[in-house]
Every structure is written in C-alpha cells, then in structure tokens.
C-alpha cells in the first residue's frame, strides 16, 4: 500500500504516455493521431504536477494578514505549507501553448484533407505515390 501511494501517479504517467505514443504510431486517422498527441502531453503535465505536490500542503496562495493601513504584516512562510508554484506555472503555459499547437495540427489536417479527400494515412500515401 505504501508503495502504491508513493508511486501511483508516476505509474499512471507512464501508462498515459504509452497510450498516447501507441496512438500516434499505430492509428491511421490523422485526427486520432492528434488526440493521442494531446494525451501524451497530459502525461507529461501530470508528471510535473505530481512532482510539485506536497503532503498536508495548501494551494500556492499565501494566507496573508494585513494591518489597518492595508500593509502586509510580516510573517514567516514555511515552504512545506504550500504546494510548489514553479512546476504549476510551467504547466499552465504549456497547456495554452498546447492548444495553440493542436490548432495548428488541425489546420494542417484540413489542408491535407482538401488535397487528398481522406484522413486515413494509408489512403493519403496511396494518392501520393
């Protein structure tokens, strides 16, 4: 049980990444290949977020007390009380960039479809040769 709690997220990361990799390699439909790519990406994001999690910690918004002039009262902040913000911002931007690149992939797919009238990899290869 100890082992499962310690490593469960990482095991899922590997499985998700492998599902995405298999989809990209083995499926013939271009849209499904792009979905597989997005699945692979979420595997990497899950890896980073699991790295930054801390047991018995809060979200990375600091609980701050203010005096009557709205100046923050000085207080000692313990690193272990809040989750890691760094891994979170790296992944936050990665998600938005991920959807922009997904859009680019879909634009290319539409171009390919208007040229070959098919989304199937084999049929496109046949019409190319």
């Amino acid at each position, binding site marked *: 049980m100890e082992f499962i709690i310690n490593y469960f997220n990482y095991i899922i990361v590997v499985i998700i990444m492998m599902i995405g*990799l*298999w989809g990209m390699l083995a499926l013939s439909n271009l849209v499904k290949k792009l979905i597989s790519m997005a699945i692979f990406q979420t595997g990497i994001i899950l890896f980073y977020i699991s790295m930054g*999690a801390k047991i018995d910690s809060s979200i990375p918004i600091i609980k701050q007390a203010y005096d009557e002039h709205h100046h923050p009262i000085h207080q000692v902040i313990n690193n272990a009380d809040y989750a890691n913000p760094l891994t979170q911002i790296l992944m936050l931007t990665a998600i*938005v960039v991920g959807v922009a690149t997904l*859009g680019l992939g879909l634009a290319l797919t*539409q*171009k390919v479809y208007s040229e070959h009238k098919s989304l199937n990899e084999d049929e496109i290869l046949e019409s190319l040769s």
Partner: protein
Amino acid sequence: MIFGLDALSLVLILICAILALYIKDLMGSVIVFGAYSFLMCVVWTCNAAVDVAFTEAAVGAGVGTVFLVSTIYNTRRVDTYRKNRVLKQLFMFLVVCVVGSILLKTITDLPHWGDAQAPANTHVSAYFLENSIADTHVPNVVTSVLADYRGFDTMFETCVVFVAFIAIFALLRTRKIPAKDLTPPHTPVDSLIIKVASHLMIPFMQLFALYVVAHGHYSPGGGFQGGVILGASLILLAISYDFERALEYLNEKKIILFVALGVLIYAGIGVICFFLGGNFLDYSVLSKILPATDTIMARSHAMLGVEVGVALTVMVSMYGIYLCLSSNGRMDKGI
C-alpha cells in the same frame, strides 16, 4: 492532496484515454476526450494546482474540444480503417510495452509523491514562496512567478501562441469560393432557444473573464485563463448566431491588430523598464513614472499590465483559430 479522489480520477482517465482512441466515430472520440480533460481538472485540484485546473477547464475541455469538432465538421466524421493494420498495431504495442517497462523501472528512483523535501520543492521554488509577498505584495505565488520572476518565459510563450495563430491564418485563409461549390456535411441548425440563451450568457461570461484577469493576483486566474474565457465567449457568439454577427464586433483586421498588440503590450512594458534604467522586465523601476507607487507596488501593477497583454493575445488568437478552422479558412460561415 487527496489521494483517494486523485487515484479514482486517474483510473477513470485511463478508461477515457483508451475509449477516445477506440471509438470509430470521431465525434464520439472527441467528446470522450473532452471528458478526459474534465477529469484531469479534478486531478490537478487534488494535487493543489488550482491555476492549472482552471486553465485545463477553459482550454482542454472547452476551446480544444471546439477546435476538434470544427475540424471534423470540415472533414470526415467516420474513422475509415483497414484490416491490414492489425499486425502493425500489435508490433507497435510490443514497442510501447518495451519503452513503458524501461520507464516503469526508473520510477522507484524518483522522490515519493508529496515529499516536501524532494529536490524540485526545495531550491528555487522555496525562494518564490518565501519572498513573493515581500517582493511584490502578491499572495498568489503562481501569478507572481508567471508575470514577474519568470517574465521572459511567459513572454515567449505568448509569442508562441501568436506565431501559431499567424501560421494557421497563413495556412488556411483563402479567397471566397462561390456558394455553389460549398458542400457542408450538414446544414447548421438555426435555433431560437440557443440564440436567446447565449445572448443572455455572453455578457456575464465576459464580465467573469475580466474579473479573472484582474483578480489573478489574489485568487486562481490570470491572463491565460481570462483570455481563453473571453475567446470562448466570442466563439459562442459565432456558433449561436453566425460569423457575420461575430465579425461585426471583431473583424479580421482587428483580429490581426489585437493579436500583435497583446505581444506589444508585454514587450513594451519590458522596453519601458529598459529606458528607465532597469533590466528588461525589471518592473521595480516603473515606480518612477507610475504615480504614488513604491518599487514593490510597481511590480504588482506592472504584472497586471502584462496579464492584460497576455489576455488580449490569447483571446484573439483562440477566436481567430476557431474562425479559420470551422470555416476552412473562408471566414464566411462555420458550425
């Protein structure tokens, strides 16, 4: 940090991932992928990453699904598939098993899940947590790291969104084709209920998005999330009415102008710092020109300016990408 919910959602995620690749109908596959993204939000929240969950809900489950649906609308819905691929698929399964087992072998070398003393949690991120309030007066550390400490990173991420938008525009935008050549797979439904409902929703969506941008210093949110919600409200307008109605508010020229303006605002704030004697994106020198602010509050205010730039670029690029994808570059009518 709730292990039970985290584990349950991850198991459901695996089922969704396999289903999304298994279903033959691409529309079904995309909808299952949307559910996958929503379950991912739950996982991010369980791991205390609320900003990431917010982004995933707006981007992965919302706008990403719309992009995929618009591509299917313009191409073919059914995955035509051939029997002769079974051997290839089995071979790829073996390859993936080998790669996966190598990766699984290395897992036990990683620090435990939730270990506060792990290397990733002790060095630079500890500095951010301990000094964010003293340096910038911003309680949401994710925002202060995003817009201030790692400002360069975010600036170039915004540039990537900008470049992706320009690339899609360059790829798909075509001259108008005569109406008789248009063969959409099915005619769009003109529903009064959808129009009235979205008409009521759009102002509140935009108000909420502005709140998300402006309140990112104190609560989960910020430029990326607010920008995507603003973009989604415009996409809703284009879906429920038609492109003409949406382009009345934000036409093509304005789209190109605003997407560049967002990047310009971000880089411009950096250049102003430059001329005031600081480093690029060193906001504390802005206290010389901002009235009644000290060096600490100048950083807080400049972060808001930067977030507005990010929101502008993200909003317009999401909207523009949707218009291009759903009309196949003709910009006349879509879903």
